[in-house]
């Protein structure tokens, strides 16, 4: 199966064609947003990081911005810097330029304040938008799809319908040569012994189990019971009792696909097929990690109805809860609730999700894109703000 995408000079394929206005530090967010709102075809990515953090976290922020800037859904990138941040802005720009993508830096302290930077940045972004608009979609193969997997605002319907249906989609995607990234390592806890059996070999299983153990130790180190945080109060209201139960439903998203490798947060997979990526379950950090890893589409299953999308990667919302489908139509793209009643088979539901992925990859917009519900993003860090 094929779809219509934008082939970039590094060989990767975009499903969107935006000019990305990336803030390099929390203090530059206002200007990045100010520029993006004045340029059609431009989108801003803002976050809360990039300054007064430990070196490992600053390295994560730099790497995440490289990942985001090189994501094929961006035709060009304008980096908006304050000028005194800990993020290595030059390195971000060089890495993006190395893929053949136009990239420029603008600094608020250099330009003489937010107003001047916004005005100059708008002109720079306008020119980038003109060049981006020359690019045309062409026929691409499903092997060019990198699909991020996410479940959120979960209830128990997901483990019975939307997640195993997405698992069918993933099985088909990887059989056709595509890539799928599963994150949310917190939600492997209790199901990791089953996921380990799906790993390609012992080395991959070991890497995945290391991520799970590290996440659990991090939670335990607080000295508190993880419950209340995971599962969330909303999960509990939806009927999910323990993290173990949540996890077993969550890993159903992988179907029976083989886990080819495991990567750190925001790392770009070097293999095709299903891979695991270290990340927490919360939306802003998870969605950003997927985009940084190069996802060009994200499929997000939700029982109770999570509204968030991402600024430049389409996020398809799939629910298996009939009440949520009726009640939150402005956030849901499709429903597979028929699976629980036996009105639709998992294979049929999985095929429908697959078709939705191809249609979205070719340009059909998602509810999160149309509503612009995609601004509150962040980069996952593990150390203190100092």
């Amino acid at each position, binding site marked *: 199966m094929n779809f219509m995408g934008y082939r970039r000079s590094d060989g990767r394929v975009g499903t969107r064609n935006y000019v990305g206005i990336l803030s390099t530090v929390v203090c530059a967010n206002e200007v990045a947003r100010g520029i993006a709102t004045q340029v059609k075809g431009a989108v801003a990515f803002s976050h809360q990081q990039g300054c007064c953090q430990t070196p490992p976290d600053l390295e994560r922020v730099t790497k995440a911005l490289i990942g985001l800037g090189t994501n094929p859904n961006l035709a060009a990138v304008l980096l908006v810097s304050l000028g005194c941040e800990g993020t290595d802005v030059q390195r971000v720009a060089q890495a993006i330029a190395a893929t053949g993508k136009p990239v420029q830096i603008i600094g608020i302290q250099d330009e003489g304040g937010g107003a001047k930077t916004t005005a100059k940045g708008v002109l720079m972004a306008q020119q980038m938008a003109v060049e981006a608009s020359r690019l045309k979609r062409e026929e691409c193969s499903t092997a060019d799809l990198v699909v991020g997997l996410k479940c959120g605002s979960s209830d128990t319907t997901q483990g019975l319908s939307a997640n195993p249906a997405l698992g069918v989609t993933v099985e088909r995607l990887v059989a056709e040569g595509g890539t799928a990234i599963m994150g949310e390592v917190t939600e492997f806890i209790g*199901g990791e012994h089953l996921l380990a059996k799906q790993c390609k070999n012992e080395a991959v299983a070991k890497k995945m189990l290391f991520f799970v153990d590290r996440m659990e130790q991090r939670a335990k180190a607080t*000295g508190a019971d993880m419950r209340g945080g995971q599962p969330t109060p909303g999960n509990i209201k939806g*009927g999910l009792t*323990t993290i173990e*139960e949540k996890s077993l439903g969550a890993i159903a998203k992988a179907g029976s696909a083989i886990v080819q490798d495991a990567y750190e947060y925001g790392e770009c997979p070097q293999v095709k097929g299903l891979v695991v990526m270290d990340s927490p379950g919360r939306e802003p950090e998870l969605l950003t990690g997927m985009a940084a890893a190069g996802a060009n589409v994200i499929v997000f299953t939700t029982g109770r109805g999570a509204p968030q999308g991402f600024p430049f990667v389409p996020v398809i919302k799939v629910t298996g*809860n009939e009440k949520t489908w009726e009640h939150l139509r402005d956030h849901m793209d499709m429903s597979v609730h028929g699976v*629980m009643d036996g009105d639709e088979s998992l294979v049929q539901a999985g095929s429908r999700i697959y078709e939705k992925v191809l249609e979205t990859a070719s340009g059909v917009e998602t509810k999160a894109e149309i509503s612009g519900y995609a601004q509150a993003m962040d980069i996952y860090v593990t150390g203190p703000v100092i």
Partner: protein
Amino acid sequence: MRRHALAIKKEDNVATAIRDIAAGEAAVVGIDDDTLAIPVGQAIVLGHKLAVRLIKKGEDILKYGTVIGRATQDIQPGEHVHVHNVESTRGRGDLA
């Protein structure tokens, strides 16, 4: 007959409600390929779980044929199974 709840594996001791079940109703529970009628004492909301047999205090709760926690008290067939009578055994910094 429309099922009210589903147990995924034969060994599961809980089933998940796929529609709201009213108090006093005999819930039609699908277990693998069989169905079983289990009277429920209290209303069970879509997505919540009920016991399909007696679960003793300290016994594992099984869903998807896998342990999802343990019972903190005896749970009768048809009773609501949730955070009030089940505890997780993972990520418990308070037990360390």
